[in-house]
Each structure stands twice: as C-alpha cells, then as structure tokens.
C-alpha cells in the first residue's frame, strides 16, 4: 500500500467533520421560550432525534479508537481536539451536524430545532477554537424558513456553507429549493450536500432494502440523481456563482456518471434547452467532492486513471469524515493519489470553494 503522508508544510482544511448533538436536552438553552416549553411538554427532549441514515453504533460510523467511553461519537470538543486538531494540524475544520431537526415534518418545529443547533454550534464549538468552521443547518423542505435561518446566521462568517441532505422530499434541483440557492449564492455560501436521506422515499426506485450496508452503498447512486437534478433543472444557469460540495458521497463513481449523463444530454437536451453545455463541464465548474470515503480500487494504479477521468484537479477537497471509519491512523489521503495534486486537495481547492475561509 502506497501510504501518502500530509506534507509538514501544508496545513490542511478538513471539509467534513461530524459533530453530534449529545442529546436534545443540550439544545434547550438555545431554544426560545415557546419552543423550549413545547419540546419539554411533548417529551421531545427525551429523544436524541438521530437520523436513521447514520446509526451511531454502526462500525462504519465511528472508528474504534475514536469511540468515546460514553456519549455519542463527535459530541465532545476534547475528542475532536485529540483526534483531529492535534494529529492533522488543520488550518480549518468544517463541522457538519446531521440531526433529525433537518427532517421533522412540522416545518416550524424543524426550523426551531435547526435554529437551536446553529446557536449551539456557535456557542459550544466555534467559540472554543478559532480553527473551527461550520455548516448552517436548515429545514430544507421549508425554503422560506431555511432562507430566514441562513440570513440570520450570515453575519457570522464562521458559518461557511449551507447543509442539505442528498435525499429528501423532492430532488434538490427542483425549483422549490431555489430560494435557498439564491440566498446561498448571494451570501457566498456553498451548498454542502451530505449523504443521507430523510426516507420520505425508499432509498431507490427498487423499494426498501433490508440492510444498512445496502443503504450506505446506495448513497452513491443517490448522489448521481442529485447531480442530474441540479444540472437538468438549470440550478447553475440560474445561480452561476453557486458552488455545491458533495460530502461523504464517494468519488470513484463520478467518471461513469459523466459518461452516462453526457450521452443522455446529446439526445435529450432539447427537453431542457437551458442545459447548453455538456453536463460534465457544468459539474466540473460548480461541484466539489470531499475525499473520504474515496472507494478506491484494489489496484492503486487505477486511482490515477480515475483522477484523469474526473478531468479536473480542482474538484476534490480533503476530509477526514471524522469520526466515521474510512482509514487508520492519520492515513486520511486515499492511497494512490498522485502527489502533484496534494496541495490543491489539502487546502487550495477548499480556499477556492469557500469564500468565507479567506
């Protein structure tokens, strides 16, 4: 295995680290009076509202040596410090919270919880270490309330992107989401689309699978659907400055995705005539992907081929996906990545993507 070490001269930007809300009670101080009482009265504070897309005890979702004695992985600052900040010496870390608040059917409850989480992130994390940055958690199925939350948070430049789940009620390119993209573009916030589903629909057109393994693997085809929706609906025509970051999407599926959507476009483009360039070109310009997990082939020489097929050295962003278990020790660079693109992946690409890091 050709292990690649992060050069000492480069301070990487870790574009995907997970914080866990330790329990819903922890959010109570960050809710307004109405919603605090509402949540206590209904007993909602007794549940952690974890997403079923990420069972915290599944081996994949926490590296064994990162698993805390008690509490949820990623719920304590000291652990983040020991596991990420010290060993990787990052310049910045972008923190993503995946939580049931994002998918509650009641739009108002969802918005109240998201607001509390963003307050909690600012107070309990961002204030503790100047290297920490975060994504704004929003009720994406309620664009009006999502925009309000984005605007409320926008003055705090430590919030560097807007977080959405890959699979929710409607494909993400659909026009109902556009107010979110408009606000994000205006405020220099990329849209971070994280693996996961609210399971309003089965994970694929085939229906409900039996195992978590299947759900996890099927995130990649899920992202294919996301890209097709963003491109064909014309999101990037409408918002030409918008950047989208696919987070924990895997990477190596992208070339075959290009080949297929490009082929369909050549025959079907007149259905969506605003798609006036080959889709792979649009995606290369607007879309970025975090590197963990990479889903690398057993033959590491093929990694170079995959990068050549992706055809851009600007698309990949370094991430540890802490505390998920994709690598051992500090081997966070996918094996086989050529060294000449390392500095771009480790930091430059993130700086070019996230205006608020500069």
């Amino acid at each position, binding site marked *: 295995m050709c292990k690649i070490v992060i050069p000492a001269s480069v301070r990487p930007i870790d574009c995907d680290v997970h914080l866990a809300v330790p329990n819903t009670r922890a959010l109570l101080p960050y809710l307004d009076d109405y919603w605090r009482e509402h949540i206590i009265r209904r007993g909602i504070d007794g549940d952690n509202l974890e997403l079923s897309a990420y069972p915290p005890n*599944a081996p*994949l979702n926490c590296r064994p040596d990162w698993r805390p004695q008690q509490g949820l992985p990623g719920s304590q600052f000291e652990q983040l410090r020991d596991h990420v900040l010290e060993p990787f010496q990052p310049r910045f870390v972008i923190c993503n919270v995946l939580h049931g608040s994002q998918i509650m059917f009641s739009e108002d409850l969802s918005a109240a919880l998201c607001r509390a989480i963003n307050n909690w992130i600012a107070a309990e994390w961002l204030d503790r270490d100047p290297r920490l940055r975060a994504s704004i958690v929003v009720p994406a199925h309620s664009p009006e309330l999502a925009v309000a939350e984005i605007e409320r948070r926008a003055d705090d430049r430590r919030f560097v992107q807007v977080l959405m789940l*890959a*699979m*929710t*009620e*409607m*494909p993400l390119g659909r026009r109902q989401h556009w107010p979110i993209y408009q606000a994000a573009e205006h405020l220099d916030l990329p849209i971070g689309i994280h693996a996961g*589903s609210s399971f*309003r*629909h*089965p*994970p*694929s*057109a*085939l*229906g409900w*699978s*039996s*195992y*978590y*393994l*299947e759900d*996890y*693997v099927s995130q*990649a*085809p*899920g992202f*294919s*659907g*996301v890209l*097709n*929706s963003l491109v*064909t*609906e014309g999101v990037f025509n409408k918002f030409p400055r918008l950047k989208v970051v696919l987070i924990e999407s895997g990477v*190596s*599926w992208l*070339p*075959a995705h*290009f*080949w*297929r*959507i*490009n*082929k*369909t476009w050549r*025959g*079907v*483009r007149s*259905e*969506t005539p605003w*798609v006036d360039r080959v889709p792979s070109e649009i995606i290369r310009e607007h879309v970025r992907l975090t590197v963990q*997990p990479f*889903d*690398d*082939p057993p033959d590491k020489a093929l990694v170079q081929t995959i990068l050549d*097929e992706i*055809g851009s050295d600007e698309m990949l962003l370094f991430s540890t996906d802490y505390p998920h*278990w*994709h690598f051992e020790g500090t081997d966070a660079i996918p094996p086989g990545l050529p060294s000449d693109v390392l500095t771009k992946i480790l930091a430059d690409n993130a700086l070019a993507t996230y205006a608020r890091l500069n």
Partner: protein
Amino acid sequence: MNMTVMDRKPEAINQSFLGFIDCDVHPFFKTPAEFDAFLPQRWREHRATIGGRTRQGLAKASNYPRMSPGNGQRMDAWPPDGTHPGSDLPFMQEQLLDLFNVAYGLLAPLVGGAGGERNVEFGAAMATAVNEWQLARWCDPDPRLKAAVQVNIEHEKAAIAEIEKRAGDRRFAQVNIPPRGVEPLGRQRYWPILEACAANGFPVSLHLGGNGGHPSTGGGWPSFYHEEHPSYVQSMQTLVTSLVCEGVFEHIPNLKVVLVEGGFAWLPALCWRLDKAWKRLHAEVPFLKQKPSEYVRQHIWVTTQPIEEPERPRDMLSTLEWIGVDRVMFSTDYPHWDQDDPRFAFKVPLPEEWRRKIYHENARALYGLD
C-alpha cells in the same frame, strides 16, 4: 470529445460484425388484440373492461414522455405498413436479423404489462399469454429469436408454475423480471422464484423497467426524461447491491443474472464501494462468505447498451478489463431510439479476442446456444 466526420460510402458490412448474438431485442404487437388469442375468456373480458392496473398516474403513457414518437422508437424503424416499430418480423429481419446475419436474438418483450400488474391473477394470465405470443409470433417463424419467460413476481405460485412449464423448452432462453418492483429483488420473499429459475436452468434477465410505485430516485420524482433515462443506471446499482448484500448468491449458488439496458461502466466503482463498506459492516451480513465484488464476478453478466461513451474513448478498455471481458455481452436494444449499432458502438478498437467474446462467445456459453 474527439470525433471525425464519418464520410464513408455505403459499404458491405465488415465480416467481423456478422453473426453476433443480440442480447436485447424488443418485439411489439401490431394490435393489442394479438394477446387475446392466448388469454382465457375471463381475462379477455377483464382486459377489455378494467384493463391493466399499474402503479402510476397515467393509465397507458409513460411517466416521462420520450423524445421520439412511439414512446422513444428509432425513427426509421416504423415498418412500411405503418405499424409499430418492432411489430413486423420481415422488417425486423431486414433492419437487424438479416442485415447482420444475427446468430440469435434474445427477446425482451416490454409489452402486456404482466410484470407490473397490480391484479396479480391478471398479471399471471398476461405473462402466460405473452409467453405464448412470443413463440407464435416470433420464435417459431424465426428460430433465431429466443423468448424470455414473463412472470409476475408478486404471484409466487403462478410465477414458479410458469417457469417450470417452460423448463426444457429451448425456445425460451431466460426468465425476465422487471427490476423496479414492489421490493428490491434480493429480498427473501423473492427467493423461491429465483430458485425456480436456477433449478430449471434459466438465467434471470433483469431488463430495465417495472414500476413499483417508488420514485426513480431516493430523493423523489425527477421532472424530466433527461433525469429518468440515467436513473436506470442508479436502479441497476441498487439492484446489484440488493442481490449481493441480501445473500441471494449464497442461497442460490447456481443463479446467473443478466443486467439488460443499464450500460455497465458504473460496475467497477460500485464493486469497490461495496467491498469497502462491507469491510466495515460485514457483521450485519454474516452470511456473505466472500467480498461482494466476488459474487458480482461469479454471478452477474452485463449487456452493453446503452453503451457509455467515455470522454477519452480508451477509458472503455480499462472499464471492460476490470469487469472481465467474459462477463460482457453485446446488445442492440432494437428498435428503441437509444439502440446501439454493433459496428460503431465501441468508440475504441477492441482486441480481437475481446470482440469475439463480447459479440459471440459469452452469450453462447451463458445461454447454452449452439
């Protein structure tokens, strides 16, 4: 993409493209009444009154209108008598079977609606009718054409009976199941049907299609055919994931599966992803005795159409090599708009041995054809 202007004279077809086996040919009816001859009176009346019941809003049309008439046909495939593409055997012979001296054509009838019918008794009757129709209208007049056993997998008893009834009839090459069903095909409730396929010597052909009522993506219903067409590839990926991870191939070690009309370039990356996630989550699926990619290698065949066209054409070679050239079989998808021509589908020259396998030998071996 680099392409040169093709400015050739009309020419005799290069010998090396003759005599191939076409793993995806679509027969159609001239009139829907053709099936009545093979339906009992009770179901003829049902068909005339209630008709097919699907899991979508439009009664007959596709959810996503295609780009050319006839629900996405090759525009030059309308027979001279004006009937539907794929419905006229002499014209199919002229445009495909005789033109290329096709050795065998594997039929994939997307007609009759048997597989997705909600009234499963009617679905089973239609499956039988379409099976008889394939023999009478296609296979007996032109024995190069091989039928696919139609079943409705929500009616287990009838499906197994139909498979057993066709066992040993060499006019049938395989059993066809539409993959977009009510539940993922790997689920245990479907194992008895898959077992019957394997026990009776039929590979299972999974041709895109079906309608279980679920949106085409995990994130909901897309707006455009532009999304629906590539979403078939996403379905193929979850189909392979389901068959492997649910343990089908451990349970039925002699099961052979053919993926039809899903392309194939996505398969290597899916295998890498399956192996990687399985490494962490194998305790959840302890019945899997080997890496997911090994089950794929042993049990799954892919057909080529609609062939992916890499931006750098030579990337096709490493893709084929990783899948294994003994697992790839050529298909045209005649007469659909996105069908492939055997001469020009691959935009990079294939080594002669690969071409022989992909166009001839793999299908011959899999289906036990002469």
